[in-house]
């Protein structure tokens, strides 16, 4: 019997995986085919969705990509006859296979392979064996030691040693302690936490229960973004199943350890990714950061000792217990151990989730695995770490992925969002984009962040409109320094990073905007103008028909003209022209 798995993470579903699943379900039933159909999560090859995996009895895999509902009959024919001819054109290419082959999967293991909706599938693949080992054979101190040996550091952005936080919470006096998972994945461009919860929720639960045992917590809480409905649904189901099997609740696995587990849906505030703001939100208040110290390990949720880690951090724990801390530490660099997951998006050819050992270079991820740019334009830079991170230029592409080395560039490892940009992306515009984000998301508690981000945004707005003045760059740098010094939490302290790194590496673009009123990337609407090259225009009138504001006029077979007063610079004319006659300056 063949096993058919349809990848149904959020991206897969958006690309049409549910329709493919329903069509296959119908055909398998109608034709009484000898095949079992199941759901799986995200394999991370988002650019190939929807993906259908067909496993033979001997475990060999046929992976079909870009599958549509209409392909279902061909897949059914293959299931019936075993003749690959009907699905040959859908088979994943050798090149695309390399996308996965070059990865090392620890946090993402099981994602896109196991069924996230069935606990038995997780257990059949060795799931909850680490928890059993911990509860039956290890003391909490031994668990913390193992994590220390592994050198696991917080994957949410700060990179703080996990064992240290666990130990601090363990050492804090008090009976009532909490273990909290930060799944408020707010960095635009990062989606690995969503993928882990949607694709392998039990791996998160197992990691958290091990953490709870280590620090002595009796309650686990997962704070998830409300924008992730599927993740919440799958996690709810996983918690229910684990409770039914005695893995959550009283006397877990008969070992005497008890721990409850619940989900709290966030309500949309980026600052809640900061751990003390998250605690405020958990308590039902505005998510505004608290002053540290006291640290959450001493006084956190309801002022009890609490430990907060990110989803990806917990997703590594079961593996570490199973394979030993030394095996984890063997991967990576002296300063950064293990692997890191990156969400690679933007202008890259192969976008998706990439997990690689620390110490690989940005080039390995973007070019070797990601396949470089999908446009015909040259690679310009990569934005790492979202609104708290920075833009790294092409010249630093051989930087090793390591907390310290990335930090030295002015960017940060961050949560692992990697947005690639080509020459058509304006870097001043990019800085403006992030400041627009942080200005909106600043909670307002600290004046420097609340007012400073707004002022930065106003200046960047002005520069993008061609109203920049000499001295603006220095003014930006000055305000950035003030914000860094005057903000209480990570959001404010890192908000200037996108501005500072773009000034550091792309100063010429700022200067072109300010001094020449020119946007070299041709993206800032106020600084560009469309025109028709009379020598190339054949007078077909297509652009004039597609212009939404009737700004293009002319006679058939004679060159057309754009009226700049009417033009809204939407670029439609340039997109539709078959002769390359529309030019942008």
């Amino acid at each position, binding site marked *: 019997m063949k096993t058919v798995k349809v990848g149904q993470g959020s991206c897969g579903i958006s690309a049409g995986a549910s329709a493919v699943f329903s069509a296959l379900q119908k055909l398998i039933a109608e034709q009484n085919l000898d095949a079992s159909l199941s759901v799986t999560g995200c394999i991370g090859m988002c650019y190939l*969705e929807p993906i259908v995996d067909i496993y033979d009895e001997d475990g060999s895999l046929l992976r079909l990509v870009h599958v549509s509902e209409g392909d279902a009959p061909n897949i059914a024919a293959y299931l019936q006859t075993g003749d690959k001819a009907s699905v040959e054109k859908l088979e994943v290419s050798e090149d695309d296979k390399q996308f996965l082959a070059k990865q090392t999967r620890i946090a993402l293991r099981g994602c896109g392979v196991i069924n996230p909706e069935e606990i038995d599938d997780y257990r059949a693949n060795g799931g909850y064996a680490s928890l059993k080992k911990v509860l039956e054979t290890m003391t909490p101190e031994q668990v913390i030691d193992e994590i220390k040996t592994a050198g696991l550091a917080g994957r949410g952005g700060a990179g703080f040693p996990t064992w240290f936080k666990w130990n601090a919470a363990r050492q804090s006096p008090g009976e009532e302690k909490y273990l909290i998972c930060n799944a408020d994945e707010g960095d635009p461009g990062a989606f690995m936490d969503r993928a882990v919860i949607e694709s392998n929720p039990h791996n998160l639960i197992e990691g958290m229960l091990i953490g709870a045992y280590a620090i002595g917590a009796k309650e686990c809480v997962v704070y998830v973004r409300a924008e992730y409905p599927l993740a919440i649904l799958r996690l709810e189901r996983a918690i229910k199943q684990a409770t039914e099997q005695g893995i959550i609740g009283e006397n877990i696995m008969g070992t005497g350890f008890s721990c409850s587990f619940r989900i709290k849906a966030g309500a*949309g505030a980026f600052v809640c990714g900061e751990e003390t703001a998250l605690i405020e939100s958990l308590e039902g208040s505005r998510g505004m950061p608290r002053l540290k110290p006291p640290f959450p390990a001493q006084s956190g949720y309801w002022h009890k000792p609490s430990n907060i880690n990110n989803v990806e951090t917990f997703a590594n724990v079961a593996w570490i217990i199973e394979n030993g801390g030394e095996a984890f530490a063997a991967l990576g660099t002296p300063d950064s151990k293990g692997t890191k997951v990156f969400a690679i998006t*933007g202008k890259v050819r192969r976008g998706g989730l990439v997990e690689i050992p620390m110490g690989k270079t940005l080039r390995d991820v973007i070019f070797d695995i990601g396949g470089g740019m999908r446009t015909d334009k040259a690679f310009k830079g990569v934005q790492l770490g979202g609104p708290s991170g920075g833009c790294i230029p092409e010249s630093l592409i051989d930087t090793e992925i390591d907390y310290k080395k990335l930090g030295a560039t002015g960017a940060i490892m961050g949560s692992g969002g990697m947005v690639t940009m080509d020459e058509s*992306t304006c870097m001043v515009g990019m800085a403006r984009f992030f400041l627009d984000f942080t200005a909106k998301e600043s909670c307002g508690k600290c004046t420097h962040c609340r007012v400073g981000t707004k002022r930065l945004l106003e200046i960047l707005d002005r520069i993008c409109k061609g109203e920049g003045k000499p001295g603006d760059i220095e003014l930006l740098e000055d305000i950035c320094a003030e914000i860094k010094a005057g903000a209480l939490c990570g959001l404010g302290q890192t908000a200037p990073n996108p501005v500072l790194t773009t000034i550091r590496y792309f100063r010429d673009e700022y200067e072109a905007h300010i001094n020449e009123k020119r946007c070299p990337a041709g993206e800032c609407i106020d600084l560009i103008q469309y025109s028709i090259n009379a020598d190339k225009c054949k007078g077909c009138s297509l652009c004039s028909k597609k212009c939404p504001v009737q700004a293009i006029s002319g006679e058939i077979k004679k060159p057309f003209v754009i009226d700049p007063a009417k033009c809204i610079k939407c670029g439609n004319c340039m997109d539709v022209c078959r002769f390359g006659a529309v030019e942008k300056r």
Partner: protein
Amino acid sequence: MSETCSCCNSDLTLLDETLAHYAAVPGSLITVLQKAQGIYGYLPADVLRHIAEQMNIPVAKVFGVATFYTQFRFAPVGKYLIMLCQGTACHVNGSLLLEKTIFETLGIKDGETTADGLFTLKNVACLGCCSLSPVMMINDETYGSLTPQKVRDILARLTEEAKKEEMSE
């Protein structure tokens, strides 16, 4: 807030069950607000006052919390809620142009609703479908790899569908 809310006669009994369950649970204000929005479609002022009273929390705190989080709305939304992703990947791939296209087609900006009550536009942070960027979500459906033309087509189709529904009613 009260200017946009003409309906201070919400059926407060719809909240009874939620409040019975959560009123005494510490820290559950956000959950109650989420449930209330699920029931009413938005958070009318009288509902917020009622929640404050029943949970014994100052009205100012309830409003403070509700206005802090982007998930909460204080005016009814249109039949179709367009959530336009403004994440980084979508930005790099042209989401600003889509916002412009929506404005030119429907005449609405972020947070506004069309006069006929059909469409509401809301800019949102990353929807997490970065590989399909630029992306928008209308009600429960996600539309990916968008271009201005695709957006115009989708909006035209939905307008057409709404018209047909109205005719048949």
